[in-house]
């Protein structure tokens, strides 16, 4: 690192690592085998009312891969029905009674998850290996994503493993047209499950999948009889491998989703500065930024995840997940296009190179 740029809050030059770091030190703590490290994986399932979320989760619990899953249900409307369904097949089900799982009830979710974690540690609930959160149909996933971002919230114990969006082949297209929230759920997702394709008219599923591809290039899975391969729900998403740029026509409120890929390793201070500029100027519009960063000062790739003005603590992995060693970032924004972001990174990189 160049002089004057080492005051990063992740710097190893202060704190316990300075006293006890040893020689083989990562600026980001112990190198991890996988992005979640030792934390509990959380799979968040979004999707509009009636899209088939509960059926999908219930099918997962019936499979061996679904063993050891705690379900947190956030209800809206039909009181208790989802809860009753899930309770019969899950060891640890918690009902959030407070309606829509958005900003104002986020603390409910935090308290629920905190209690689950504590109960598990003291053996008061069966030992579970993951949490699946079923959000209410209207929920904005953003606040849920933020919940796992910081130590103050739940970032020390829980890790957002995957955000799954369920879209049904019958009503999905109409929801996209009428409800901006449904497009946002799709845009933010790591994977998308299309349900009810067997009930939809001919060609509807194909048209829906094409529409989804205009919002998010993430993998789309077609559920059969309400179920899908468990790994499609549970696995850590793969890092993006190609450039894309999806922008909705309305640039003032429309969603943009694009990738930035850097051939050369970045410097952490440069990356941090570029992100700090973006977060301070356009934080509310930075719906989600995720990816792997190759750093000159690190052996392994660094996993980054930012939701609006909140950055998850970066994690250095022991190794790259594939043979692509380039920095790869995906941005989902509201009205913030690829070009100015790419330019910002380019100028910060040029400044860092010039000042080195």
């Amino acid at each position, binding site marked *: 690192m160049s002089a004057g740029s080492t005051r990063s809050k992740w710097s190893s030059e202060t704190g316990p690592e300075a*006293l*006890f770091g040893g020689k083989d030190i990562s600026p980001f*703590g*112990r190198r991890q*085998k996988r992005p979640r*490290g*030792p934390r509990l994986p959380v799979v968040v399932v979004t999707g509009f009312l009636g899209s088939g979320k509960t059926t999908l989760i219930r099918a997962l619990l019936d499979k061996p891969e679904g063993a050891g899953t705690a379900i947190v249900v956030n209800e809206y409307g039909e009181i208790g029905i989802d809860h009753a369904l899930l309770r019969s097949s899950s060891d640890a089900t918690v009902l959030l009674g407070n309606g829509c799982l958005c900003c104002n009830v986020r603390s409910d979710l935090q308290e629920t998850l905190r209690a689950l974690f504590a109960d598990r*540690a*003291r053996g008061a609930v069966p*030992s579970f290996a993951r949490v699946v959160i079923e959000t209410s149909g209207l929920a904005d996933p953003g606040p849920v994503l933020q919940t796992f971002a910081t130590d103050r919230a739940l970032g020390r114990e829980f890790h957002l493993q995957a955000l799954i969006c369920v879209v049904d082949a019958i009503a999905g297209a109409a929801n996209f047209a009428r409800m901006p929230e449904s497009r946002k759920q799709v845009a933010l997702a790591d994977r998308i499950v299309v349900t009810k394709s067997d009930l939809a008219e001919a060609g509807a599923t194909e048209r829906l999948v094409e529409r989804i591809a205009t919002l998010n290039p993430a993998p789309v899975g077609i559920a059969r009889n309400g179920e899908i391969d468990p790994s499609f729900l549970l696995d850590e998403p793969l890092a993006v491998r190609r450039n894309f740029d999806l922008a909705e026509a309305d640039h003032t409120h429309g969603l943009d989703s694009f990738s930035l890929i850097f051939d050369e390793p970045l410097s952490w201070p440069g990356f941090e500065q570029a992100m700090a500029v973006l977060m301070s100027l356009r934080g509310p519009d930075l719906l989600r930024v995720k990816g792997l960063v190759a750093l000159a000062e690190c052996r392994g790739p660094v996993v980054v995840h930012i939701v609006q003005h909140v950055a998850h603590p970066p994690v250095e992995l022991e190794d790259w997940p594939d043979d692509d060693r380039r920095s790869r970032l995906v941005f989902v924004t509201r009205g913030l296009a690829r070009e100015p972001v790419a330019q910002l990174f380019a100028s910060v990189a040029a400044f860092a190179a010039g000042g080195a």
Partner: protein
Amino acid sequence: MADTAIWNFKQLAHHELDGFGGIGEGMSIQIAKDGRRILWLAHESAPKNFTAVDVSDPRAPKLVARADLPQSHMRSNSLETVGDIMAVAYQTTRPGLQPAGFELFDISVPENPRSITFFDCSGPHSRGVHQLWFADGQYIHMSSGASDFVPSHPKDDQFYRIIDVKNPSKPVEVGRWWLPGTKEGDSEPPPVRHPENADTGFRPHNTNVYPERPDRAYLGYIDGGLVILDIADMAHPKMVARWDYHPPYFGFTHTVVPFFDRNLLIVSDECTRTEGQDWPKLVWIVDGRAETNPVPISTCPLPPLENFMRRGARYGAHNLYENLPKPNAWKSDRIVLATFFNGGLRAYDTSNPYQPAEVGYFVPEPPARAPSGAIQINDVFVDERQIVYTVDRHVGGLYTLEMEF
């Protein structure tokens, strides 16, 4: 009965060792000449001496060999292998009995361990060897009595001894050390005893020596706390540091593992009483930057006592994975793996040593026929493939695991 609780470990196999699944504190990997990976296990108590298990495929461990003890009044408890030589500790139930000492075996054919020599440590005041450390092929560092050693208190019968086994058929003692005052005739006064119902003796348990500091021995000195010795002159070990935290804590400091590169010492107690009577028995993180002044800075977090104290038998710390300085052993100066009897095997990340964080646990369901009705996870070893081996003290035998943290 509690179900298995598992977090960030993946269980690969469980082998009950055909009805003799009570394992002590000796776990050592040998790569046999035919390439098989053999795990040698010391038994907790008679009638079995040691068991060899082929763990080449950790998903399908196979029993290879097993030996009986010559006497029922003895136990082996501790063993180590270096190449095709295995050292096995023998301790008797009372002073004055035989055989007490250690035996060296040629294990070049794992099915047929052949005795090379027996090193006698018996004596009127000796129970022989409780634990031995054998990593470099030349020296055995051990906690042992001796025929010529008269302790000032009968519970202090074992002390630190260094035996040169370079010629395995003729082991020779090259050094010894005891806490001043624990040998009759010492000019120093004997140490102040712990209360009678909690007096477990001023004697070493584990005696670890690493190539990073060949001039140091790291001793868990039971009721005497942590002891660091300068053994540059093996004939005259000198105490460099001692950290004694009892009272107020119950005694039985068990193991000291240095994380050399990070100036940390990881120290475990042994829980020796049931139902939480000697709680808390802990794993301590000690700041070792000033060698002569070890400073405890944290302990590894444990689930609440009330959730385990009534599960049966012991709940509290015991063995640590010791970063064995051997090619077929895993090394980590971040992760602590520790066994806690009915609290199972637990893993901690010490990256921030002021706040060690639990990153995994494995608490198997109580084995069938467990005398206490509880699991009693006793010891842990990790090979260079990062396969974790852990054992039950009474009947459960061997569990193989992968680490996922």
